[in-house]
């Protein structure tokens, strides 16, 4: 490995290896990477390889002896509920990702200007400490049809509207679940972005103000470009969350009514994996991996571009 020609040094921050120390740089790096690599090989790489193998087998109930070629893939892609799941994941991708980042940024920027900043951040972060099942319980109550029990329909009742069947109406159910996702993740975004904002030196902002820039100009011209890296880190994390998303629909609707709120990972887990359809489940997992490859490539490109420093 060490003898392979060096690839183009990509990240702008790479330092030259110390020539005076004994170990060749590749070996030193390997030592740092070793614990991670061993664990990854055992728990992730090896399972992924066996998943690839499983995805071309009938794989029913853990019995892998019936090669079926690409049948599982064709089968999965032709399932109507899987197609619905893909569409729903796209909805999540668009709305969940952008609104979480929006809220995170707004809360982080706005909260910086008040003395109770840490309280606001703690409040928004609170849902992060709540287990998924409890999250489901909380919001199932908020969305209850009966205005005597459901907070949202009670509030709508006050202004003479509703009740709306938030989880029973195919027109509303995805919006209702995405809202729960946003509620749960905004704290994560706030914490990350707020930390990044703290890193902007006050002098730059002062200078801009002195030059007559208004707050909106400062936000768009200075703050936003300076937090673009954390935002892209956040975006990648959220996109990964979306593709793996499963607990909110699982706990709250089981993908219903009908297939209205299905998502890919739920399809994987409920329809295939827990049903012992390991071949089909593996095919779905591989499809999930493939979907994410563009995101990963974007991410790595982004850091290569040198915009980091």
């Amino acid at each position, binding site marked *: 490995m060490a003898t392979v020609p060096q690839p183009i040094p990509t990240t702008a921050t790479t330092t030259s290896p110390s020539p005076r120390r004994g170990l060749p740089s590749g070996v030193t790096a390997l030592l740092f990477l070793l614990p991670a690599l061993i664990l990854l090989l055992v728990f992730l790489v090896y399972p992924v390889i066996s998943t690839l193998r499983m995805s071309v087998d*009938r794989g*029913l*109930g*853990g*019995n892998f002896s019936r090669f079926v070629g690409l049948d599982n893939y064709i*089968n999965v892609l032709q*399932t*109507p*509920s899987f197609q619905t799941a893909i569409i729903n994941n796209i909805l999540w991708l668009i709305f969940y990702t952008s609104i979480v980042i929006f809220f995170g940024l707004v809360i982080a920027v706005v909260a910086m200007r008040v003395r109770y900043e840490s309280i606001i951040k703690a409040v928004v972060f609170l849902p992060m400490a709540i287990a998924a099942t409890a999250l489901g319980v909380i919001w*199932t109550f908020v*969305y*209850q*049809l*009966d205005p*005597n029990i459901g907070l949202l329909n009670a509030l709508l009742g006050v202004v003479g509207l509703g*009740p709306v*069947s*938030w*989880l*029973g*109406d*195919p027109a509303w159910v995805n919006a209702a679940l995405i809202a729960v996702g946003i509620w749960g993740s905004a704290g994560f975004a706030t914490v990350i972005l707020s930390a990044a904002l703290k890193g902007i030196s006050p002098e730059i902002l002062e200078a801009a103000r002195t030059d007559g820039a208004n707050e909106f100009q400062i936000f768009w011209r200075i703050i936003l470009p300076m937090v673009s890296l954390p935002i892209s880190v956040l975006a990648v994390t959220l996109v990964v969350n979306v593709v793996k998303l499963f607990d909110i629909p699982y706990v709250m*609707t*089981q*993908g*219903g*009514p*009908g*297939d209205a709120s299905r998502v890919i990972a739920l399809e994987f887990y*409920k*329809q*295939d*994996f*827990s*049903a*012992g*359809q390991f071949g*089909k489940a593996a095919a779905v997992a591989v499809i999930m991996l493939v979907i994410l490859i563009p995101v990963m490539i974007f991410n790595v490109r982004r850091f290569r571009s040198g915009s980091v420093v």
Partner: protein
Amino acid sequence: MAKSLRFMTLPIAAVMIVSACSSGGTPAPSAGGGTSAAPGGESAAPGGESAPAASGVTGATITVTSLWGGSEQEAFQKVLDDFKAKTGNTATYQAQRTDYATVLQSKITSGSPPDVAIMPGLGFLRQFARSGGIKKISDLGIDPASLEANYPPGILDPGKVDGELYGIMVKFNSKSTFWYRPDKLSAAGATVPKSFDDLKSLISTLQSKGSATPLALGAKDSWTLTDWFEEIYLRQNGPDAYKKLFSPDGDWTDPTVATALDAMKSVITNQNVPGGITGALGVAFTDGIAQAFGANPSADLYYEGGFVGGIATGQVNKSLEIGKTIDWFDFPAFGGSGDTAAEIGGDEIAALTTNPGVKEFIQYMTTVDSGTTWAKTGAIISPVKAVGADAYPNDLAKKEAAQVAGASAVVYDGSDTLPAGAPDMGAMLQKVIQGQDTAGLLSTFNSAVKQAWSDEK
């Protein structure tokens, strides 16, 4: 997993096949009952008063896993305590409340399976049986034929895979119970409906007396809809057609299926159900119970299995009075051969190992001792024939047991019979009641179910 939860029983209300057999607690074939299954100390004396005392090991410890938690677990613990007292072996219970099949599969794979599992869903049972995860009952040294006499006909059938007995039903609930508010019905001058048409006119009577939406429905848990469909299909077409539909030979494009769905849609309508269909699709199973039996009821009728009683009286509303504010009638009739049949959902016990004590435990679970001990807790209905009506602690349970015991035929919950990899029947029905194209849904469903059956082999 809701798919697999649906046939599990809740506390209290269970009843049991009140042994129609004359003398209440007739101990079944202790010595000679029916089959001579006692060669070489392999005496399976299930159903007998005394468990397999002489032949079995003592001092063994085994683990038993199932889905029950909370009060269900406490009730089952009484059975385990009795097992220890009777046989000298210890069975330790591990509640496995979520991701049942996944975890069980994992434990089998990692080489540390529980010794005994009580399983939800026949699809899983077949799957584990065919992949070698669970043992044949005969592998334990228990002669399956020796068990037949302890149960009403047909009870052991669901536990058979490819003709071999792998699982034995240990508890069940009737699914043919239609729950209602006696006080509301008598206030409206109405009586309990006998036929499906009676049910429709009862609903309009109640509506004319000021109950706008008499029929509670918790269709967010889609298994409530599969039960609705199964009851109607069973009554319209009889037990044989029912069993065929839920077998590899079933044809979902057959006109009888659409007819049953039409009947279902004739009562599950926007007018009859609180919040309309869209509303009901956002209402969970227990919230449906609350619609009819809660403190601020908006409905008078609720169809679901015998377990509704326990949840309604134990959790939703403690002021309910059996016979006054809560009771049930037989699911209404259609005038066919299926009208006197009963549908049940139940749990199957299966052995994952042949460790010492496993045989003794499985045998014990077929005895009247275990059945009676368990039935007395009010948590279950025991399928063991010799468990007497007096074992059940309340009237709802006694009545449920009597219903099943008196049924002309007993069939198993159809959606729990489908292969584990079958498409989501409940989701399909959710679309049906939304008014989507039934023929199209059924034809898609039909081909996917056929595929799942053939995959399973």
